[in-house]
C-alpha cells in the first residue's frame, strides 16, 4: 500500500513538472524552497511578519489587498492588541451617518485592508493607464497549481529586474505550416535554426523583467536594498524582502494551508487504516470463493 502511495506521489509530481514545462512559455520560473511546501509544510511566522512589513511599507502604496482583514493578522503571530494598533493606523470610509454623510474612522480588526485607490479607474489613471492588480490571490493566480509555484513566481518577478538585453525572444515563435513542416524541422533543423526568434527590446516607459511574460513590465523595480527596516534586525536585501513578501502573499492567498495539511495527514492515516481493514475483510470474504 505504501508503495502504491509513493507511486501516486511520484506520478503526480512528475505530472506537475511536465505540465509546467508544457505550458508553452519560454520563460522558466526557478524553484525556491518554501517552509510551507511538503507533506507537513507550515508558514514561517517571522518571515510572514517581515513580508507584511514589506507589503505595508512598499507594495500597499499601489496594490490593494482586498480579501485580507486586519483580524487575519492573528495568523502571523500578532495578538489582539497589536492587531487593534495596526488597524488603527488606517482610516476607512464608513456611513452614511444619521446626517446621511459618509465619514472616515479608524479601522477596527473586522475591517479589511483599505485599497490605495478609490476604484479601478482611479488606480489605472494614477499608474499610467494600467491598474496595479490586487495582491490577495496573486500567489494562486499567475503560475502553476502546486503550493509554492505562485510564491516562486512572485519571488522571480521581484528579483527579475536585471539589465535589459538588446533583444529578447519574440512573443510569436516559428509557426509551422503543418505536420510535415514540423517533423522536418524536428528532424533536420540545424542548431542555428532551432534557436528562438529574437526581436529588439523597446522598453519605452516600461521596465525590463526577465521573468515577466513579454519581458516588459509597467511596475518599476519596487524593492531596493534597505527599502524597509526590519524590526527583527534581518538585513533587508532585495532577495530577503522578495522572499518574505512572497511568503506573506502565499499566506494571503491560501490562509488555510496549515489547516489543510494538518487535516490531510489525519485523514490520510485514517484512510490507510480503513483501506487495510477493508482489504483484510475482502480477502477473508473471498477466501472460500472458487
Amino acid at each position, binding site marked *: 500500500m505504501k508503495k*502504491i*502511495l509513493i507511486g*501516486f*506521489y511520484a506520478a*503526480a509530481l512528475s505530472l*506537475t513538472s511536465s505540465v509546467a514545462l*508544457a*505550458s*508553452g512559455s519560454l520563460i522558466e520560473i526557478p524553484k525556491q524552497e518554501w517552509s510551507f511546501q511538503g*507533506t507537513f509544510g507550515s508558514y514561517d511566522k517571522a518571515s510572514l511578519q517581515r513580508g507584511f512589513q514589506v507589503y505595508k511599507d512598499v507594495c500597499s502604496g499601489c496594490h490593494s489587498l*482586498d*480579501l485580507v482583514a486586519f483580524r*487575519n493578522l492573528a495568523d502571523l503571530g500578532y495578538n489582539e492588541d497589536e492587531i487593534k494598533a495596526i488597524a488603527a493606523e488606517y482610516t476607512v470610509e464608513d456611513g452614511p451617518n444619521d446626517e446621511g454623510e459618509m465619514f472616515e474612522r479608524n479601522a477596527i480588526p473586522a475591517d479589511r485592508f483599505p485599497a490605495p485607490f478609490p476604484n479601478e479607474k482611479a488606480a489605472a489613471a494614477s499608474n499610467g493607464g494600467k491598474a496595479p*492588480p490586487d495582491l*490577495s*490571490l496573486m500567489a*494562486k*493566480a*499567475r*503560475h*502553476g*497549481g*502546486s*503550493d509554492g509555484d*505562485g510564491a516562486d513566481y512572485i519571488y522571480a518577478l521581484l528579483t527579475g529586474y536585471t539589465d535589459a538585453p538588446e533583444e529578447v525572444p519574440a512573443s510569436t515563435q516559428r*509557426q*509551422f*505550416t*503543418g*505536420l510535415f*513542416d*514540423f*517533423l522536418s524541422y524536428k528532424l533536420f533543423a540545424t542548431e542555428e535554426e532551432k534557436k528562438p526568434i529574437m526581436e529588439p527590446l523597446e522598453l519605452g516607459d516600461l521596465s525590463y523583467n526577465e521573468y515577466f*511574460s513579454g519581458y516588459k513590465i509597467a511596475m518599476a523595480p519596487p524593492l531596493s536594498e534597505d527599502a524597509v527596516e526590519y524590526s527583527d534586525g534581518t538585513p533587508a536585501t532585495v532577495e530577503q524582502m522578495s522572499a518574505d513578501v512572497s511568503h506573506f502573499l502565499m499566506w494571503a*492567498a491560501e*490562509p*488555510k494551508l496549515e*489547516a*489543510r*495539511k494538518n*487535516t*490531510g*495527514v489525519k*485523514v*490520510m492515516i485514517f*484512510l*490507510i487504516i*480503513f*483501506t487495510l481493514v*477493508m*482489504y483484510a*475483510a*475482502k480477502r477473508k*470474504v*473471498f477466501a472460500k*470463493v*472458487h
Partner: protein
Amino acid sequence: MSFKTNNKVVQWVEDRLPLISMGHHTLYEYPMPKNLNYLWNFGSLAGFALVTMIVTGIILAMQYTAHVDMAFNSVERIMRDVNNGWLIRYIHMNMASFFFIAVYIHMMRGLYYGSYKAPRELLWQLGVVIFLLMMATAFMGYVLPWGQMSFWGATVITNLFSAIPVVGESIVTWLWGGFSVDNPTLNRFFALHYLLPFIIVAVVVLHIVALHTVTSNNPLGIDMKGPQDSLTFQPYYTIKDLFGLGVFLMLFAFFLFWAPNFMGHPDNYIPANPLSTPAHIVPEWYFLPFYAILRAVPDKLGGVIAMFGAIAILFVLPWLDRSKIRSCKFRPVARIFFWIFLANGLLLGWLGGQPAEEPYVALSRIATAYYFFHFLILLPIILPMIERPRELPSSIHEAVLKS
C-alpha cells in the same frame, strides 16, 4: 425476494410499501457474477462521487452568492471565513475531476468488455445520458466562481450555439439572457447547476433498474447460468466496493490536501473581466478530448457537429459493433484496437490543451478522424471481416476453476 420479519411495524410498512425488500434485494441478495475484477468498482465509485458532489454542493450553495459583483468574493469568503469552507470547496472542486475519472474508467471498462451489447443497450444509453448531463453540470459549475476562466469558458462554449444556421444568434442571446455573458447568465447557470444533479440522480436510478433487470456483465462476457456462477452483493461486493473506495479516497485525499489547485487553472483566481481575454483559454481537463475534436474541424458548424457527434455516436454503439462476442478477452483484433482507441483518446485530450497551431491542429485532425473511423468503419465493417473470435468458456464457474 419477499421479505419476512417478526417485527409487526416493519412488516406492516413492508406489506404496503416494499422499501425494505427493495433495499434487501438491491444491496443484499442481488446476484453478481463471481469473476468481476476491480474495473467493476468504478460504478459504485461514480455513485459515491455523485453523492459527495450533491452534499458539498448544497452546503456551498448556502454560502454562495450568484451575482456578478459578489460571486467571486463570496467564493473567497467560503475559502477564508466560513468554518471548514476551504475544505468543502476543495472537495467539491476536486471531486468533480475524480467523478469524471471514475466515469471515464467505467466507460472504458464497458467498451473493453462489451457491456453495451444486447441485452444491455438501454443500460449503456442511460449511461451516456448521465455523461452528457455531467458535462453540462460541470460546465455550469465552473462558471459560478466568476473568475477569468469561468467567464471566458462560458463565453466560448455558449458561442458554440451560434454555429446553428439561421436561429443560432437568437439562441445564444436567449442562453445569455442578454447580449453577452452577464448577470442573467450567471443566475440561470446557478439554478441549473443546482437542478441537474438531481436529474442525474433520477437517471442513475433508471440506470440501476436497467442493470438489475439485465444483471452485470463480467470479464468473460458470458451470462450467469446459475448460483454456481454468482455471489450475493452482500458481503462480497459491499466489502470489495469499500476497499476500492479506500484506495480511491487515498488518491483523492492526496490531491485534496496537497495539490488542491493542480487540476484547476490559475486564471480562475483572477476575477472575471469582460474586457480582457486570457492568453490561453483551456477548458477543464475532462473536456479536452472533445475540445480537440471541436478545434480539429476548420468549419464552425462542422466543429460543433463533430464534437456533439463524438458523444452522440456512443448512443448507437450497440448497433455499430456487430460482433456477438462481448468481451475483448475473446476478440484478439478488437482488443488491439481498443488500446489504440484509448491511446487516441488520451492523445486528443493532450491536444485539446495545446494552443491552436501546428503541429497540434494537424494531429488533432488525424486523431479526430481516427475516433470516427473506429466507430463508423472499424467496428461495423472491418472487424467482422478480419476477426476470428476465440472460443468462449461454457460457464463462469468452469472458467474460474480452470484459472
